[in-house]
């Protein structure tokens, strides 16, 4: 989980500069990112962790913070392993 969080943070810091982003900080409410970023984030999560983001995953809670993203990735990875 910590390794995934570090990878997510590294990606986010390409877009969010001069800010000490916390694991539970709302990425979207902070005004750091634009609409294109959201699509880039989906592609990052998919290509970086070999999972598919689908219709049922489209809940803002899944993408709002580093913690939420790490949890989503863990959950999707586990469901793939049991598939």
């Amino acid at each position, binding site marked *: 989980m910590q390794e995934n969080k570090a990878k997510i943070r590294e*990606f986010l810091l*390409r*877009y969010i*500069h001069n800010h000490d982003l916390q694991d539970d900080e709302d990425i979207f409410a902070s005004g750091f990112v*634009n*609409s*294109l970023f*959201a*699509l*880039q*984030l*989906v*592609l*990052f999560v*998919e*290509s970086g962790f070999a999972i598919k983001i*689908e*219709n049922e995953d*489209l*809940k*803002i809670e899944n993408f709002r913070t580093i913690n939420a993203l790490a949890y989503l990735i863990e959950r999707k990875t586990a469901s793939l392993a049991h598939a």
Partner: protein
Amino acid sequence: MIMDNVMKIELNAQQKKNQAAFRAFVSEEIIPHADRYDQEERIPSELITKLVQRGYLGATLPEEYGGRDMDMITYGLLNEELGRGCSSVRSLVTVQDMVAQTILKWGSRHQKELWLDEMASGDVIAAFALTEPDVGSDAKSVETTATFAGDSYILNGHKQWITFGQIADLFLVFGQCEGKSCAFLIEKDAPGLSMKPIFGMLGARASMLAELHLNDCQIPQENLVGGVGFGLVPVALFALNRGRYSIAWGCVGIAQACLEACLQHTSSRKQFGVYLKEHQLIQQMITDMIVNVKAARLLCYQAGYLQELGDPNSIMEIMIAKYFASTMATQVANDAVQIYGAMGCCSAHAVQRHLRDAKIMEIIEGTTQIHQIKIAEFGYQAYANN
């Protein structure tokens, strides 16, 4: 000596074979008729049948849905060749792909089962309905409303400039529900939906544009795509990203067509006692065409490669490719008309059609100016990271 450590930018054998097949199809079935499509402002159903027979309307859909499962480079090659022939025909393939891939990515299992087979088989033609009379680049401000009532949504609004709206069976329509963006699949015979054809456009005239009127248009709640609040991001942006990639390649095709026409024309027409190609100012224009077409194609290859990998950078690389290719196509087509002179201003020569079509490519799926803003933002972001 073969070096394994060199970077290769080369099509594989299957891609080359497909490219040759696409080129032959366009040369035989589209180019001889494209000026007529432009003048009549329509694409005949016989051509659509031929596109379907070759699997071009389900080009990138997986085989399980009856698609051809093309990789992104092969799909790009198809778009270049179609663009070389007729931008309106290319637009048909573009829009079908935009909607099909959006359903594949963000649709429910039910929506995929219901629509994708039929889209691949060409039984269903789809259209993308985002733009409105008062809303173009500022897509988040769409004024079409959706109200949830019982087990349905009621839509009210007006959509404009909808490519192939005249013949579409299915529309991917964007609106707002309680201030949140939403995307809906709406069948052409949905109650409260009416269509009015649009004629007299500058370019891409055979794209059979339409305006849509939604007057208390009632659709089942299961027609919502991607959930309330996700209509624009990621659903519409995902579709637009697909569209930009296709258009970028199509613009390479437009410019390639102009280049080939100019190479032929300047080799056969004489002025001042020598062929046009002997004049150095003509050579300058031909040189710029050759270099710019190659540059745009390389940007498209780069974008396609990253798109195939699912790389987050693919989104900006596609914007860069679309920006460069569309502005380049306008310039190349403009020079082609200049080289042809009065003949280039006559409907008997395709370069004037390509010039009009190229201008449209600078407007659709994000204007040149929106691309400039986004690419500059990206540049400053990348600079900050260094």
